[in-house]
C-alpha cells in the first residue's frame, strides 16, 4: 500500500513516513502542495494523509486537486486544532480526522479502514 504524507512540518512528516515504512507501507512525504502535486503526478498513491492547515493551500483544497489527479485516492486529515467542535465539524463533512499528536497505531488503523483492509 502506497501512502503520501503532506505537512509543512518537515520533521513531523519525514518521521511519520519512516515509521510507516517500518510497518510495511510504501511512504513518500511532501511539505508543500506543489511538492505533493509533483509526487502524485509521478506515482500512484492509495492514501493521502494531509495536514488541514498549510501555507498557500489548505488540506481541503489540496484534497480536491489530488482527487482530480487520482479519483481513487483515499484521504485522511490531520490537524493541530484539537477542539471537539473542530472534530465534529470535520466528521460531519465525512472525512477522517486525526488530531495531533496521535499514536501511530491510530493512523495505521485509519489507513487500513480507508482501504477496507
Amino acid at each position, binding site marked *: 500500500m502506497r501512502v503520501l504524507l503532506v505537512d509543512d512540518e518537515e*520533521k513531523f512528516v519525514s*518521521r511519520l513516513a519512516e515509521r510507516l515504512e517500518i510497518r510495511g507501507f510504501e511512504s513518500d512525504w511532501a511539505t508543500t502542495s506543489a511538492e505533493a502535486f509533483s509526487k502524485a503526478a509521478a506515482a500512484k498513491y492509495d492514501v493521502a494523509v494531509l495536514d488541514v492547515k498549510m501555507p498557500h493551500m489548505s488540506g481541503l483544497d489540496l484534497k480536491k486537486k489530488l482527487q482530480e489527479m487520482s479519483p481513487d485516492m483515499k484521504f485522511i486529515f490531520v490537524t*493541530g*486544532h484539537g477542539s471537539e467542535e473542530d472534530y465534529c465539524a470535520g466528521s460531519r463533512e465525512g472525512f477522517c480526522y486525526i488530531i*495531533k*499528536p496521535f499514536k501511530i497505531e491510530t493512523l495505521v488503523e485509519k489507513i487500513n479502514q480507508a482501504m477496507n483492509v
Partner: protein
Amino acid sequence: MEHEIARACAQGLSFFGKTNRLISHELKNVLAIISETLGLIDELIELSETGMGLEPGKLRSLSESVIEEVERANAIIRNMNTFAHSVDEIVGEVEVGQSVKLVMELCQLESAAKRTKLRFEKSEPCVLHTSRFFLENLIHHALVYALHGVGPENEIRVSLSSDEHGVRIGFAGIACNVIGEFPTKKGHLLARIVGAEVSMNPAAGELTIALPKKMDDAGIQNLISKD
C-alpha cells in the same frame, strides 16, 4: 468614548482568544514532532534488538531534534506568558519595541502561511504611557493587514522611531494596490483608544502608526473598578 472602549474590549477578547488558539495549534505541532521522533527512536532500538544495526549518528540527530523542539515549545510558552501579562495593567509604561517584537513572534504562523519574512529593525527603547493590550491589538491588526497585502519582496519590515511627541511604528513592504483599505473600522477604533494616528504612503507601500507619549486614559480609568 466609554461605548467605544467597551467595543474595543470585546474586540480585545476576540484577539486574545484567536492568539491563544494559534499558540495551542503551534504547541500541538511541537508535541507531534516530539511524539514521532521518540516513537521512531523507540522503534529503531527495537529493530536493533532483532539484529538490525543502530546508527549512533542518526540517534544523536533525532535526540538533538527533540531538544530543539523543547526549546521551541519553551519560546512559544514564554511568549504566551508575556502576552497573558499584557492585561495585568490596563494603562502604564510600555516599551513599544518589546510589544512589537512579541506581536511579530505571535504572527509567525500567519507569516509562514503567507511565506513572508517579518523583519524588525532594531531601535533604542521607546517608552510610552499607554495601554499595552490595546496597543498590541492595534500592532497585530496592522501586521495582519500588511501580511494580506504583502508586496513582491515577501518581506514586511517593521521599524520604530521616536521624538518629543511620541513613537512611530512603520510597516514597509506592503503592495501598493491594497494600501488604501487601512485603517478598517476595527483599526480606527483601536487607534482612537490609544490616541494613535494611522497614515499611509501608498507609493512607498508603507503604513505608519504614530503614538502619543501619553494616551488620554480618562475613559478607561472610569471603567476600571476602584475597589
